[in-house]
């Protein structure tokens, strides 16, 4: 009788502890978001979006150059990384049954787990060193390398969700495989693939380490892709570790904008993918 009581108490206690753990796990998200809003919201104004850095000692200034830089660098990364990633994903889903598919899938996971700073120095060695200077182009290359495995794996998953019966129906209509794949299978998974790409892009948009020795950063507004360029995460880092309060203020504001971008993309994508997956089920 007593044994049973102890067992039940243990059960209740442990159940309670898992509730506590979940609360503790969610706490940092709330703390980070709360802090970003408290410290950053006050500085996110029109100036922030249209002005660039001001000389030391003057207050004010904005992140326009960093925001534009991030858009350009991420855009370059998408240009290179998305076609390769989506193509790889389609290949893995449609033809990836053999040893080659297995190997590529495994290597994609390995590349996905490779520290981004390592990718940064390799791109420095392959692009920046031969060119003689840092450039937005090199930054785009580094982000593209990070983008490819993520996009490949999500694309593969989304294409696999398309029921085989659709594939068969198209083949029975006399569609060649390529038409079946592109106009029936991929077309059906299109929304899910796009949102998967959005999540991946959101993730690389926040990457800092691979840009340190590639895009490098720039205190001035620049749109030349063969020159060093500022990026939002780089600027946040520089300002966060710098000694001035005004820089810290801008770093918080920049972080708020960056996380807004990332979370909105992820949340929207999650909702759409969830709906798409349910429709196929």
């Amino acid at each position, binding site marked *: 009788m007593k044994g049973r009581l102890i067992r039940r108490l243990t059960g209740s206690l442990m159940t309670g502890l898992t509730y506590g753990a979940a609360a503790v796990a969610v706490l940092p998200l709330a703390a980070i978001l709360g802090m970003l809003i408290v410290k950053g919201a006050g500085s996110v104004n029109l100036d922030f979006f249209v002005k660039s850095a001001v000389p030391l000692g003057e207050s004010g200034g904005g992140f326009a150059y960093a925001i534009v830089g991030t858009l350009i660098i991420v855009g370059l990364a998408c240009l290179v990384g998305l076609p390769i990633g989506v*193509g790889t994903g389609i290949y893995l889903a449609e033809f990836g049954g053999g040893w080659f598919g297995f190997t590529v899938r495994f290597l994609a996971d390995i*590349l996905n787990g*490779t520290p981004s700073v390592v990718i940064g120095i390799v791109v*420095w060695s392959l692009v920046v060193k031969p060119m003689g200077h840092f450039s937005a182009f090199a930054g785009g290359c580094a982000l593209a390398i990070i983008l490819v495995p993520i996009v490949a794996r999500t694309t593969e998953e989304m294409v696999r969700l398309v029921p085989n019966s659709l594939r068969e129906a198209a083949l029975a209509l006399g569609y060649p495989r390529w038409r079946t794949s592109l106009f029936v299978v991929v077309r059906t998974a299109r929304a899910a693939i796009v949102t998967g790409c959005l999540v991946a892009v959101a993730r690389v948009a926040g990457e800092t380490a691979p840009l340190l020795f590639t895009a490098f950063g720039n205190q001035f507004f620049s749109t030349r892709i063969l020159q060093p360029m500022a990026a939002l995460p780089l600027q946040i880092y520089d300002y966060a570790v710098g000694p001035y309060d005004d820089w810290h203020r801008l770093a918080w504001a920049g972080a708020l904008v960056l996380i807004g971008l990332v979370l909105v993309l992820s949340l929207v994508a999650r909702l759409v993918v969830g709906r798409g997956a349910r429709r196929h089920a």
Partner: protein
Amino acid sequence: MTDVPAASLEPEVVPRPTAEERWRALRTVSRGDVVYRSLLTLLTLCLPAVLLVIALELLVAALPGIRAMGLSFLVHSEWDAVHDRFGALPLIVGTVYSSAIALVIAVPLALACAVFLTEFAPRWLRQPVATLIELLAAVPSVIYGLWGIFVLIPLLRDHLWPVVKPVLHWLPIFSGVFYGPSMLAAGVILAIMILPYIAAVTREVLLAVPPAQREAGLALGATRWETVWTVILPYGRAGIMGAVILGLGRALGETMAVTMVIGNNHQVALSVLKPGYTIASVIANEFAESVTRLQVSSLFYVGLVLFVITLVVNALARFLVWRVARGSGVGSTAL
């Protein structure tokens, strides 16, 4: 097309081809398939090629350092750019130490979260909480660093440490003065960052446990908790190991947040209150300002070490998770 069409009932329909005409049509080849598949294969080859190039380039760039210092590089702790003497021991120790702290904090929490999400949480709460935890993984590293500098470090130093100091200060790992940027701060930040990865993969592993296992436990009269502890967790053991190792891989390679809070000091210290260094953060900090050729090469050398470590760790993790995902629960008893 002038042949007499086979019986066609619809006048507006194109006349049916004769058997011979059709026979010729049947024998065409669809070149599109070949083109499509070749194109996709070409795109797919990029990924292995990139990985190969990364490995080779790291090796080539690290070669001067490897030639000059050999394996002794890995066990020396000097890091002196002026005299061109480099040793990676503090970096390797710091990388492993900070990740270990992160695992100690994150693993119990993550497992509890996963159990909560699959077993105990009310159904309406499961998806929202899972989404929140996954959003934690979407927060950029540099924002963790920012938060670490301005919120976490003051919190640890000014509020938490004074409270626990009287109880813990005699322990060697808590010796010394706590200035803020430290191994502990790095470990805590890393714990927060890898928790969502471990929790998400563990959750998937637990969801893959067949309902029959669960019901069998309950049918034997075990409480829900006892079923979790004695049946479900052991059943998913291999997959959970995989999830933990996956988290470890993340922690080992994490750069920005760690660089911003670890204190960046080349020393091997037992105390978690002391500043330290990791491989990733030394690269982030010193690469752009490297002076000598040997210093650059040394950084590639540690980069190569980090690459190999994460490669092994990730391969192991994937192997474990795949075994479970393949549906063979047999693998879990072997570990």
